[in-house]
């Protein structure tokens, strides 16, 4: 999709959101009707209005007909993103240490790093640092297995 059309879609989304936001203030009750509701209406009107203006500008002036790329190298970009989502999914079940012990080396390999010794040293250093500072010093509760 070209940048112009993605931009238009996002702006259209903001306009729809503004309308829904404005209408939602009808359900405000009590003192919120004359306080919070006014504030939310103000935000809705302004973001809606500005989005409409920008939509009009884009429709008539925007000549960005090139494809929009979120990344120059999709395999690495998506690799990191997928690993990040897996990390978040297993974080609560396996805990930080087990998840990070897999996440850091795998992502380094996905990004094309081949020095295994550096990868191992870095992973162990990060885990040791988190253990000493977060667990031992600050008593932060991390989920899962924590030694």
């Amino acid at each position, binding site marked *: 999709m070209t940048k112009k059309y993605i931009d238009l879609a996002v702006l259209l989304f903001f306009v729809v959101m503004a309308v829904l936001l404005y209408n939602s203030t009808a359900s405000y009750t009590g003192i919120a009707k004359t*306080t919070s509701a006014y504030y939310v209406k103000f935000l809705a009107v302004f*973001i809606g209005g500005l989005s409409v203006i920008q939509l009009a500008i884009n429709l008539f002036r925007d000549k960005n007909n090139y494809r929009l790329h979120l990344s120059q190298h999709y395999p690495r*970009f998506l690799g*990191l993103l997928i690993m990040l989502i897996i990390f*978040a999914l297993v*974080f609560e079940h396996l805990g930080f240490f087990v998840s990070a012990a897999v996440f*850091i080396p795998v992502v380094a390999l996905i990004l094309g*790093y081949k020095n295994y010794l550096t990868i191992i040293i870095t992973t162990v250093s*990060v885990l040791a640092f988190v253990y000493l500072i977060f667990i031992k010093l600050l008593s932060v509760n991390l989920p899962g297995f924590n030694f």
Partner: protein
Amino acid sequence: MMEYISIVFQPISLFTILLGTVAGVAIGGMPGLTATMAVGLLVPFTYTMDPTMGLMLLGGIYCGAMYGGSIPAILLNTPGTPAAVATAIEGFPMSQKGKAGLALKVSVVASFVGGSFSVLVLLLFAPLLAQQALKFGPAETFLLALMGLAGIISIADENSSLIKALIAGLLGMIIAVVGTDDMSGSLRYTMGYIELIDGIDFMPALIGLFSMIQMLELAGMRKKHEIDMSALHKKQKSEPMPKGITKHIALGSGTGTVIGVLPGEGATIAAFISYNISKRISRTKELFGKGNPEGIAAAESGNNGCVGGSLVPTLTLGIPGNSVAAALMGAFIIHGMIPGPDLFNEYADRTYPFIISLFIANLVFLGVGLTVAPYLAKIALIPPAILVPVVSAFAVLGSYALNNSVFDIYLMIAFAIFGLLLKKLNFSLEALILGLILGPIAEGGFTQGMIIGKGSPWIFFESPIAKIMWVIILLLLIPPLYSYFKHTSLLKTPDAET
């Protein structure tokens, strides 16, 4: 006064301050760990300590953490604390140019001056300033948030679209609306998620929008990430402070201290307002957003200026200047020292050494910053394939640690993906985060002001302070708007196009 100074200069006192400050720098330097969290966690531990020592330890953490937030902001585009967002805007581009050492040096010197100035003000004028701060009501708080939001217009100076910057700022304010409505107590826009009852915390958003986007972009680069190595290999210690930086540090110190005195206002708003004013008065406006040390100087002296400022209403009136000051107030109370005039009379032998110890804490982080900064700057030399997984792991940990919530990790990832799309479409992420941080302050001031004004918006124009603030807001808005429209009209002329 000499007897108070002698208490501070005892070896055990100096060691306590050193320990607290270094720990504070480390905590502030880690995204997700805040000064509030550290002070709050350690308050119970000071119960068994000598009260003066306990307070010195916590004061050191406060000072150190406020400075520490700037280190990852400059080196990794990951603000350690929300107050360091403005620092990241200028600091990270400097790192990319190989000037991380200079950026860190400017940051620590500005932090030191801002922090020391505010402590001096606390020492000399605390009771007087506290009385003035009481005149600051909800209407003025709302206007203060507007002053901070005026920064959005300045952000647009650098980008092509003023409208898109405004939309991004409003989007941030709308995201901040999610959660419990303070007026009615009912839930708004939570979509059934109990994790959203307290709203969207700005820390996952901050990490997602600044740090994670950076990592996704680094991971997806076709070519190797280029950094100007020549500047990194120079002796960073000998690099002089940029000329004309003093006025920006002075500006930030004054602004930070004044904003810090106002109850409920924080270092973030101080940093943004200082940054914004600095940009207006700078002779090198065009360098803002591309790595201008003046911006770092103003933002860092601004947020550290809040340290002493926030303790003014805390110690004299028992009204915490911000959340860290509230945690510190808890420490005073558990040691039987009720904030108020008694602190400066009955407990003067504890209060004054505590205040003086803050000067030492500032000196400690200055020393730490100047000696360690050149080595920290070498982080820029780490290969992206190692840096990306490590920073990503810390981003996940930082998002989780604040509320012990996995939901915050998902939020961080969502902010990173959506933020990257907005960035590619030339929406300003700085404006979005500004709206997200200042939105709750603006809403709180607006809604309370409307109640006091019985539904009339005139409350926002009535008091002399409000009138002065409107003038300042207009002064902040008109010049950048004028230069923006002048700039865009110039671009449209045939000569400019060719």
